[in-house]
């Protein structure tokens, strides 16, 4: 069994963002573990709860949500990138004096330090 850390830098509009979800399902069904998914750069937009794609298309935050809840996978979103690109928790929105917040549950805000620590603990890091 391998443990994977997925490093997502692709936006939700890209095929890579969908491939990451397919990869996670394939790894889990082959008895590997996805310990965490770290969203960085344009990848933080995958955690935006305010996405309403047509019902026959993939709702990316919902897919991650379901993987996280079923398989105890941590979903971590880079704090600096999320603030730059407008993916905020209620407390951050409040701090910046902004009206809305949109970080989907159970995504969590994290620092790059957490990424660094995670990448030393897993067998493989795979970037999408």
């Amino acid at each position, binding site marked *: 069994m391998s443990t994977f850390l997925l490093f997502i830098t692709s936006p939700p509009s890209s095929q890579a963002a969908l491939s990451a979800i397919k990869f996670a399902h394939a790894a889990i069904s082959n008895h590997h573990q996805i310990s965490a998914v770290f969203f960085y*750069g*344009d990848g933080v937009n995958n955690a935006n709860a305010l996405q309403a794609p047509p019902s026959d298309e993939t709702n990316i935050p919902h897919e991650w949500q379901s993987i996280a809840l079923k398989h105890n996978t941590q979903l971590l979103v880079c704090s600096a*990138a999320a603030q730059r690109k407008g993916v905020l928790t209620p407390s951050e929105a409040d701090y910046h004096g902004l009206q809305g917040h949109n970080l989907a549950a159970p995504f969590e805000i994290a620092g*790059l*330090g957490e990424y*660094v*620590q995670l*990448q*030393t603990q897993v067998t493989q*890091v795979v970037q999408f």
Partner: protein
Amino acid sequence: MKTAILMTHSPFQTEEGREGLELALALATYEQTVALFFFNEGVLQLKNNHIASDLSPKNYTATFKALGLYDVEEVYVLEDSLADYQLQNTDLIVDANVLAHDDFFQKLNTCQRQLKF
């Protein structure tokens, strides 16, 4: 364990370069061994004397000079990519190892983690 940061984008068109550099510095801060690999358009990030004031409020490429302070010693540049842009080692903002194709990718193969920006 060594982490390679691959830089393949030109400096100001997208945010990849800055994001790659920030991750490299974060890894170094936590005492991880980091090596930077510049090829294709990525070599343009290391060109010295960028005048970026009209483009962006911050010229992050000046921060490459701080890599030494973070004990990041391994900066590799693909010779062919430099030649594509008619650049030489002396045009670069940091003291980098300019390597031919085979040596460059051999160095990359020594890195257990590889992240592309």
